[in-house]
């Protein structure tokens, strides 16, 4: 199929291949050329060879010397290039010695005339030309590295930014930390010093509170018991409460350090809730410790093992019942935490939501699951990561909901998402959301807010919510936006559509998702030029290790650098056709070179212990 003149202009440096038969003597235009996007597939299948092929920019306006069939790559002997003004000298060196052959094109001097270098066959070639010899302007070598998405010149503030614009603190959130060193059972729930006691017999009330819950057990897991078998982990939650009448996202929050709530469970038949790639097994082998959504090494787990009615593990009410039953325990702890003595506070942290007028405005769009069942999120509960007062985003129709960055950090999302352990964002993830923190604290950008949008099941609904995202951003009017998604699959359809809706309004956009091998995008569009892959696994797969492939600080830094570069008008290089983990390494290096700050990379599954038997085999092999 031929291409438009505009498209040809965009793809000037792509190979020129005829889309249909063309007669000798014809002057080549975009109508004669095939869409370069399809070439990779044709080359892979051996149907097309692009060796020596000229670029679209070369052949436009040139005369065809010979009648050719469709899909003929246009080479020098087929096209009369002489009619075209010489733009740049070209080297033609068969790569005998690879490094020497990469001479690169040299820009023509402004004084007229052309420098032509022709090398018939090359080996160990060094060409050195004094800069002055080329006339007034020096020749600029255009070095084209392998096409890779590169963050470009990061960390450059917008030139127009005025230093006099003062930062405005919109609202503040204070976190008071209470240290817990021991969790035990006792006659009543209480907090004494650093010891948390949970009332014995509370399990029965949890079970009675939910029709679908048939059993609930509480396990208190201390660090020396990490090598314990557990059913699939549905969620990891901070234990926190608001002081007085404070609302989520503002005022003061009290939080327990060193202890987390962990929800796990099965149905009566022993089928894991959130079947498919469940993370059941030994805790120490299945958790990527220290990820934003995960427990940290040293945390004590208050783990509920919930048994729900048979065959409800895949229905919406099942997982919700497991979460609600667990929240009954959390809520009892919240009540004692509210009353805890001020002297027990070990640390106080303040988060300011700062607006920076005059700086580039950015918005974070977070796509959250909304297909139903465990693909759901409870939004804006009364207590941090609570249940009471929250609305499931499936019931809201998955439409965009605008929240403040501080609401995100204060547990406005109670995550039910249960599928794909390695890429799911659990409740604790939002509590420590790296992208929100990174952007909020960056003095070069003005974070306006966070837009949460659900991902429905049916395509028509996906496009419905996606158009609302476009309109929401149009109303906000930012310079740049991040679009993030957890997991992969059909939610990549709306992910792509959000990027399109935002991009076509002239807003620069960077997408973030787990992709790599297994999560490769299903669709794309011309606005999807800047993407950050959240993958951390060795093989680029969903490796069933809890939160292994979720968004971490290292990804947030890359995405922010990429968006800044885009907003400054720099081009982000095209990605390679297949997943290549080196792109990430190179971008990290580029970013830290510019910022002067080393970026520490998180560990992946290879740092976890292997089961003894497996290790034995592995060591003997």
């Amino acid at each position, binding site marked *: 199929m031929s291409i438009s003149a505009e498209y040809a202009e965009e793809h000037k440096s792509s190979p020129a291949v005829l889309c249909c038969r063309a007669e000798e003597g014809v002057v080549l235009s975009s109508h004669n050329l095939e869409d370069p996007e399809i070439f990779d597939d044709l080359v892979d299948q051996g149907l097309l060879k692009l060796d020596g092929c000229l670029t679209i920019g070369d052949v436009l306006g040139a005369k065809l010397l010979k009648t050719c069939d469709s899909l003929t790559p246009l080479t020098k002997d087929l096209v009369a290039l002489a009619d075209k003004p010489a733009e740049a000298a070209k080297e033609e060196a068969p790569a005998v010695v690879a490094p020497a052959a990469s001479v690169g094109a040299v820009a023509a001097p402004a004084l007229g005339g052309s420098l032509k270098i022709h090398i018939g066959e090359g080996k160990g070639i060094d060409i050195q030309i004094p800069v002055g010899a080329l006339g007034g302007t020096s020749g600029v070598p255009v070095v084209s590295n392998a096409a890779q998405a590169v963050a470009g010149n990061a960390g450059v503030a917008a030139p127009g930014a005025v230093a006099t614009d003062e930062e405005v603190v919109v609202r503040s959130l204070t976190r008071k930390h209470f240290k817990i060193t021991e969790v035990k059972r006792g006659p009543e729930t209480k907090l004494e010093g650093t010891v948390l006691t949970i009332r014995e017999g509370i399990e029965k009330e949890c079970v009675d509170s939910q029709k679908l819950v048939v059993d609930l057990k509480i396990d208190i897991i201390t660090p020396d018991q990490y090598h314990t078998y557990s059913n699939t982990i549905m969620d990891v939650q901070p234990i926190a409460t608001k002081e007085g009448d404070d609302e989520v996202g503002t005022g003061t929050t009290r939080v327990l350090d060193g202890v987390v709530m962990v929800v796990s469970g099965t149905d009566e038949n022993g089928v894991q809730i959130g079947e498919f790639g469940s993370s059941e*097994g030994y805790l120490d082998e299945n958790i990527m410790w220290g990820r934003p959504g995960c427990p940290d090494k040293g945390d004590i787990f208050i783990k509920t093992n919930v048994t729900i009615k048979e065959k409800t593990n895949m*229905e919406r009410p099942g997982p919700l019942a497991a979460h609600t039953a667990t929240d009954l325990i959390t809520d009892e702890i919240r009540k004692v935490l509210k009353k805890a003595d001020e002297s027990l506070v070990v640390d106080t942290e303040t988060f300011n939501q700062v607006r920076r007028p005059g700086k580039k405005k950015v918005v974070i769009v977070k796509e959250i699951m909304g297909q139903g069942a465990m693909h759901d999120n409870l939004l804006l509960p009364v207590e941090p990561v609570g249940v009471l007062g929250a609305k499931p985003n499936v019931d809201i129709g998955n439409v965009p909901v605008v929240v403040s960055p501080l609401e995100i950090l204060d547990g406005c999302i109670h995550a039910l998402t249960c*599928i794909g352990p390695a890429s799911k964002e659990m409740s604790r993830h939002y509590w420590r959301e790296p992208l929100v923190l990174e952007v909020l604290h960056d003095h070069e950008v003005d974070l306006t807010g966070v837009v949460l949008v659900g991902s429905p099941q049916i395509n028509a609904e996906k496009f419905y919510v996606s158009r609302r995202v476009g309109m929401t951003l149009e109303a906000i009017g930012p310079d740049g936006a991040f679009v993030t998604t957890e997991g992969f699959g059909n939610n990549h359809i709306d992910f792509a559509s959000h990027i399109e809706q935002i991009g076509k309004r002239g807003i620069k956009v960077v997408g973030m998702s787990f992709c790599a091998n297994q999560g490769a995008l299903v669709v794309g569009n011309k606005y999807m030029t800047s993407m950050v892959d959240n993958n951390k696994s060795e093989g680029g797969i969903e490796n069933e290790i809890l939160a292994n492939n979720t968004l971490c600080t290292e990804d947030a830094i890359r995405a922010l650098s990429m968006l800044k570069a885009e907003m400054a008008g720099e081009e982000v290089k095209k990605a390679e056709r297949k997943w290549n983990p080196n792109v990430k390494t190179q971008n990290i290096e580029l970013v830290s070179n510019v910022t002067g700050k080393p970026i520490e990379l998180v560990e992946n599954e290879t740092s976890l212990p292997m089961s003894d038997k497996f290790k034995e085999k592995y060591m003997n092999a």
Partner: protein
Amino acid sequence: MAKYTDKIIYMEGIIVEVHDGAVGIDLKGRLGFLKIPMRMLISDYEIKVGQEVGFNMSFIEQLSPDVNEKYISNIQKRQEP
């Protein structure tokens, strides 16, 4: 790594189970049964039992003769009363 992943075969199936979080699919020609999470089904219409689905797949190959003890241990746990 599997060796024959480039042998792409077009397959069809019938939706036989619809849950809030998953669908069950019988592969046409009695070639097996597949249960997938909702997220992995691309749908333009309301999902109903009896609808047909299509997809490309390849052969399923063993990756090595080794047994992963982690999965054995999980299976054993599941079978415990």
